């Protein structure tokens, strides 16, 4: 399991994961807003 407190490498992977998830969420919200 990814633990961002264990090492810098895992913290970096966690950051990349957050960027991807937040990017997907923002895209979904913006698409829903433009449709409705």
């Amino acid at each position, binding site marked *: 399991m990814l633990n*961002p*407190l*264990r*090492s*810098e*490498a895992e*913290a*970096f992977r*966690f*950051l990349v994961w*957050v*960027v991807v998830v*937040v990017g997907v*969420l*923002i895209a979904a*919200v*913006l698409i829903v807003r433009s449709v409705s």
Partner: protein
Amino acid sequence: MESASVAVPHGAEHEHHGPPPANRSSRVEAQFLGMLLFIISEVMLFGAFFTAYFFIRVVNNAHWPAAGTKLPVAVAGVNTAILLSSSLTMHWALLSAKNENRFGMRAGLASTFLLGLTFLTVQINEYVHVGFAPHDNAQGTIFYGLTGLHGAHVFVGLTLLSFATIRAFRGHFTATEHRGVEVPGIYWHFVDVMWIIVYSTIYVL
């Protein structure tokens, strides 16, 4: 006195130097537990500010940003890219440290520091030109509160990075001993994660 000298195994007095090891009250490593408690307290601190943000946007259904004001989304977007690239250089610095690449470690740390400093300078410039003050309205208070809280964390990160950079140029880190780069690196990525959330909620959504 005699019995005490008999109880010590031969040569054991040379194995331990300094004060006795601290008593551990937890099965979790002290460094890990300390970082965990710190991050939890940080999440609660940011959470308090985000609660205020979501309260005025969701509960009060207030206009965001306040009517007649505009947030520099594009400038903040470029600033976000600058901060994210500083995480890349931080990661490069630690990889270089692990591979005994002293140039890469020094260049990575120095560029991370400079990119972080650029981020903070752009944010201060944004405050100068944004056109509203913290006391103007609730939106202004939350905007300055959240971005300022994050900016304070960037400042702390820059302080840690300056120590790591100076130590790197003095030749302190090796492939096996580089905790002085690892811990600021974890902190720096945490600051980046918080900015991703701050930027997406304050500027984009």
